[in-house]
């Protein structure tokens, strides 16, 4: 039999009045808790000792430079607001589910039929609008602050050109060309020295991302983008290409090496020199120049002037090979010269089909390029 309750329009309160023993609200849904716990886990910043090598973990919530620092502060505010909203709404949901669940002993009657309430609708429209308003204010301020920053006198200027799948790095004012590893000076309180990057692409779209230094900015062909960093702590910072750019997108790694100013000056001086000539490697040098290596690679001070591949003038001053595909060592260099496709399948450097002896000689020559 169906019994009808009296209807109450525009009243939520009446619906809640039937006296019942309050059900315990403690049965919080575990998935809700789980997600929140995950969030807290990160926020607390305790992630890296548990997973991975601390030197290599690039937690964007542990920034070590502007503007990543400023982004993190904004992010924490947003995370807090979102976590609060989640707790309130999820709490209400759990409450409604527990409190208004159908109980086996219930009569078959329908609950009071309520169609809505204009006051309540207005409340939960206006409240989110206010929250959104606050978020927009803080967001737009940070956008302008980071994006419209002018380069101060004394700033380092560098041009980064994305290639499939490596980074060309130029310092036009210093006359340096290198690859895959960006060197910048550390800023300190006495001498602020941010680095401003011009980002371009030689082929498809890429994106420059070193999480602990700054957010990403894309490198798009036919376009010049700009970003800046101002790290204060010397060290090596890992990053990646963050825009899908084809076959070896995953092996387009990036590092930024932040040095104390004096050390950076020293590095600049070394890089400005032409390639080192070593008599012990004349055989390898000959083979290098006799093959088509020179049509893609440049070695300053020689006739090798190719621009399709990385500049090799000071190859041995770098930490990695093939845009982070391997650490730079005798063995990896040998493997690479022997057959690049083994180390990084699909890369644009072909297997040159040279004999093992010639490989050894070329490697000996390359190892003189300090």
């Amino acid at each position, binding site marked *: 039999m169906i019994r009808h309750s009296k209807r109450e329009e525009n009243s939520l309160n009446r619906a809640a009045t039937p006296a019942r023993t309050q059900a315990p609200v403690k049965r919080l849904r575990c998935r809700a808790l789980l997600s929140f716990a995950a969030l807290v886990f990160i926020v607390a910043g305790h992630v890296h000792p548990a997973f991975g090598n601390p030197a290599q973990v690039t937690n964007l919530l542990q920034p070590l430079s502007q503007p990543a620092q400023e982004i993190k502060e904004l992010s924490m505010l947003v995370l807090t607001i979102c976590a609060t909203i989640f707790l309130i709404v999820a709490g209400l949901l759990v409450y409604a589910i527990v409190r208004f669940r159908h109980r086996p002993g219930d009569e078959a009657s329908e609950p009071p039929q309520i169609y809505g309430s204009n006051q309540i609708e207005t409340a939960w*429209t206006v409240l989110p609008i206010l929250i959104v308003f606050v978020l927009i204010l803080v967001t737009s301020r940070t956008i302008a602050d980071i994006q419209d920053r002018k380069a101060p006198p004394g700033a380092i200027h560098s041009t980064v050109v994305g290639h499939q799948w490596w980074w060309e790095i130029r310092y036009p004012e210093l006359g340096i060309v290198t690859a895959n590893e960006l060197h910048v000076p550390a800023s300190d309180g006495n001498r602020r020295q941010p680095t401003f990057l011009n980002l371009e692409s030689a082929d498809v779209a890429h994106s420059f991302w070193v999480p602990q230094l700054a957010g990403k900015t894309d490198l798009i062909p036919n376009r010049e983008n700009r970003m800046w960093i101002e790290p204060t702590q010397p060290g090596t910072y890992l990053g990646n290409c963050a825009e*899908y750019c084809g076959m070896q997108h995953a092996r387009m790694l990036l590092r930024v090496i932040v040095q104390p100013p004096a050390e950076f000056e020293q590095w600049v001086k070394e890089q400005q020199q032409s390639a080192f000539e070593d008599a012990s490697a004349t055989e390898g040098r000959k083979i290098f120049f006799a093959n088509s290596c020179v049509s893609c690679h440049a070695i300053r001070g020689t006739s090798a002037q190719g621009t399709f591949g990385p500049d090799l003038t000071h190859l041995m001053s770098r930490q990695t090979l093939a845009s982070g595909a391997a650490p730079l060592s005798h063995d990896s260099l040998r493997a690479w010269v022997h057959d690049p496709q083994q180390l990084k399948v699909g890369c644009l450097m072909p297997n040159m089909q040279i004999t093992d002896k010639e490989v050894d000689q070329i490697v000996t020559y390359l190892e003189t390029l300090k």
Partner: protein
Amino acid sequence: MAAQEISLISSAPPRSSLIDRLHGLVVTVDHKKLGLMYIGTALLFLVVAGLMAMVMRWQLAIPNNHLVPPDVFNRLFTMHGTAMVFLVGMPILAGLGNYLVPLMIGARDMAFPRLNAFGYWMFLFGGLLLYFSYLGAPGLSGHGSAPDVGWFAYAPLTGRAFSRGHSTDYWILSLLLTGIGTTVSSINVIATAVSMRCRGMTLMRMPLFVWMMIVTNFMILLVMPALSVAQIMLLIDRYLGGRFFDTQAGGSALLWQHFFWIFGHPEVYILMIPGFACVSEIVPVFSRKPIFGYPVMVGATTMIGLISMGVWAHHMFSVGMTSTGNTFFAISTMLVAVPTGIKIFNWLGTMYGGKIHFEVPMIFCLGMLFQFLIAGLTGIMLAVVPFDWQLTDSYFVVAHFHYVLIGGLLFALFAGFYYWYPKAFGRMLNRKLGLWHFWLFTIGFHLTFDTMHIPGLLGMPRRIYTYDAGRGWETLNLITSLGALVQAAGILCLVINLLRSLKKGEVAGNDPWDAWTLEWATSSPPPEYNFETLPVVRSRRPLWDLKHPEDPDWKYEG
């Protein structure tokens, strides 16, 4: 629940041979058969694209894995994304719209039955064409295979210089075909809902499901051309010497991104609104109350549709727009949160004061509410431009949109399957298997996608086929991959349930859930003509009026 049988008509399905039935499927113009064919085909594609995701997760479970080479991996994520959006999400929404809209508005078929069949076959052959690329794309030169440019196919990676062979052509042509199918299906649903409602069903008496279908299909009509046009421009670039996106000849890579996201972002809402539609029908029935704030729900849906047309460049915060441009799109994106929030609150208001029955459809809806809440909040984080500079194109974004599309949409669709299956096949889905499905899938989902946020925060970019050990990603990726296995087990329960219940399910009767909309007024499954006499309605809940003649809704609706 007081289950009342209301049989206005009765019919027994005629027996026939397999050949006859297959032939029947090929020649049919019946909206119900076509609707089920849409959904069935989409489920097949769901399994295929899901298995592709499993291979990717296997590859990423451990660092420096050599299970698949990079080119194969890149095809996997391209095909997974493209198939899930165009061959699973879109056809399921077309299928639900096809099956339910005529029944809900008391019509005997869609406005254009033949066009309806045409739309289905375009979708099917478009989908098959996409998968045929594995065989067909190598062509004579042997360069191509399946598309490997990502589902977003950013220029100039799709130009002939970077994408040789025919793989990108297959991506373009198959999506143009399914796009035609989707467009005609949208025209059909809108025309049906606008012009074929039964007597007494004014616009403001339509079930919310129909309202949301109208909105979502209008959005398809508005944005699908952006994608089709961009794809045709790309074809012109590739074969007729066009220079739209050819950056080496002065074309613009950004132009493609704008075109793609003008389509691509509303597309997310196009996929999501049918999920809202299912939830808006199911939550009231199992709370035993009408939807809270019906007119506000209609308004909020329309607002989502309108605002979502102006948010596309939030996918492009890192391309170097001006600070003014970035701020504009941050504002519009955050504004979408307002009507979306209103919907969550209205579902909450519907449950508040009700008597909630934990049937399987309702349980899936409750899961959806929690998960969609989280997905919405991570969406807010991504709308905060500087935060987005860090998060975009990282695994955080992958986790976010899978939270939307699985935690939100797929859960809502599963709820819909359990809810309307009895109507479509006359038999209930098994509750026990349904609960297994729910718990396995939910646990797997949270293992995978809660965990997946963290590598994003630790700097792991999307679309990488492998990564080195030591960056803190390994354990998290392993958990993510294990979760995928648990999800697959859940899906297996669903498949078994769907097939087994066809024959062995409990007989449902016309109205197993004691529901209120018109589809429950006819037999299960409904006869070809749906209703023997066309119904006349006086309120939003015609079956409530019928069951409670002494206390009908029309006395109270303004």
